């Protein structure tokens, strides 16, 4: 039987751009060019490797996001994924993590899956909570924050480098996995891959298709509220000196004046 892998990928504002908030205090997705979250490229890479090792596998990339999020899907398809699902609906604007996980879970169930692979965190919200929420909603094991992952005989195994210890994990499929940026460099799309991606199917779904109501998502449906977003004042210019042989001493004097030594 075919191994069905669903990779969750997010379209995010480029972290090297000048990211801001809009008036309703949601992420401004116009101010800065968007792209496939770099941390989700690692998820696509692992999905492709796992699929490559399986007898028969199909990799579907899934995103919840605005029209432009299609770019993220195209990039993942050009890396080698087989097909894509794009959940897009005007009512989704301002959805929080709980809402996003709800929509993703419905779309994953509708698509059919044996393995869900996520990145470790999105590079904009950076909460790192969606994979755990998905496992909870789908009622399957979570095997998360893996630096190494393998699938064999209906089981997923992997290495999790935690704060206090390194753990070797194991669970039966179906399961939700997330991988870190230590899991192995993501491949670049080849020219052939980019051409092939243009012909790959992208299914578009809205809330109706997933049996969800507008009230369950969006800014109105969010269970958290941002009341204020203030730009951090630029740090006041510090003192910069060029070392003329006394740099170590000068630095020590600065630290002493600040009472660090």
């Amino acid at each position: 039987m075919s191994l069905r892998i669903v990779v969750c990928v997010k379209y995010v504002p480029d972290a090297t751009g000048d990211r801001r908030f809009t008036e309703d205090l949601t992420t401004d997705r116009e101010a800065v060019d968007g792209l496939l979250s770099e941390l989700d490229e690692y998820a696509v890479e692992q999905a492709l490797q796992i699929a490559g090792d399986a007898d028969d596998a199909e990799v579907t990339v899934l995103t919840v996001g605005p029209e432009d999020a299609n770019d993220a899907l195209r990039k993942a398809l050009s890396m080698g994924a087989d097909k894509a699902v794009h959940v897009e609906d005007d009512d989704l604007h301002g959805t929080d993590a709980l809402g996003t996980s709800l929509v993703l879970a419905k779309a994953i169930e509708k698509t059919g899956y044996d393995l869900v692979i996520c990145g470790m965190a999105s590079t904009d919200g950076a909460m790192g909570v969606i994979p755990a929420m998905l496992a909870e909603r789908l009622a399957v094991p979570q095997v998360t924050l893996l630096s190494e992952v393998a699938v064999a005989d209906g089981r997923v195994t992997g290495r999790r480098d935690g704060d206090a210890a390194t753990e070797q994990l194991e669970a039966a499929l179906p399961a939700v996995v997330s991988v870190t940026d230590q899991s192995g460099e993501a491949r670049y799309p080849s020219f052939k891959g980019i051409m092939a991606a243009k012909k790959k199917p992208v299914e578009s779904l809205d809330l109706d298709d997933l049996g969800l109501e507008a009230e369950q998502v969006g800014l109105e449906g969010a269970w958290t509220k941002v009341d204020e977003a203030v730009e951090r004042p630029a740090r006041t210019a510090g003192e910069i000196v060029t070392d003329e042989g006394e740099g170590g001493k000068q630095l020590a004097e600065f630290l002493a004046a600040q009472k660090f030594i």
Partner: protein
Amino acid sequence: MAEVLVYVDHLDGAVRKPTLELLTLARRIGDPVAVHLGPGADTAAPVLAEHGAVRVLTADAAEFADYLVVPKVDALQAAAESVSPAAVLIPSSAEGKEIAARLAVRLGSGIITDAVDLESGDEGPVTRQSVFAAGFTTKSRVTEGVPVITVKPNSAAPESAPAAGTVEQLTVSFGELATGTKVVSRTRREATGRPELTEAAIVVSGGRGVNGAENFAVIENLADALGAAVGASRAAVDAGWYPHSSQVGQTGKSVSPQLYIAAGISGAIQHRAGMQTSKTIVAVNKDAEAPIFDLVDYGIVGDLFEIVPALTEEVRTRKG
């Protein structure tokens, strides 16, 4: 007064500092009730009481160590159902955030992660967060259910506030999902004898400029002279010069010490994301144009192999 659940992060009963910070923050919104899972409650309870825990709910079972995350969620859910707290506070570690994520789904509650401050408000706790690589500060609150909030280390200074700290057994029945992901083996990280990176008052970090694993001794010597933790940029970690557990930045640890010293680090946005909120920032870099200099309180343009050892010597002499 309402009670506030505080999840205790500990190693066999040795309570980690971020938990004490959480107890301090919890007292601003109610009476802290600590939840201690796994062994060592006897050791932990007096420390928790000393920092304001009115009660310590405890449960010990093999499941907490043998399976990933979910058994702890089952326990916190049981605690939340028996206490009806005003909020649940959890340290913002990788595991803490995952526990919080699942708990929020179960309780039907909003969740806020990586708070750096917390105060009481008319409509429940108000949190402060630092977002977009610390480019913005936001104030947010949970509008539905019991607020589930994870708090970053170094968000408050732990205060002593002795309370009863009555130890009570928490009854937990594990659900079907609890044993879903088996921890087949666990290798504990060896202690370095240095302060914990996220908790340290001073962090000294090295980057690509350190140019080799063996050269990291230069960084370590300065750290030891200052009683600091050692950090590294991703470039240094990817090169295999220093362990990933010491990486500072977006995909490593985020630190907010009193003093951050960056040597041979250019200051890419992903690195800044993990250190920009440090109180005082110092950099040594031979490139005067390096973006790290935009952040510094004091910067030296020069060779780290000249400056850092000289500084180390000077610190040692001054400290006597």
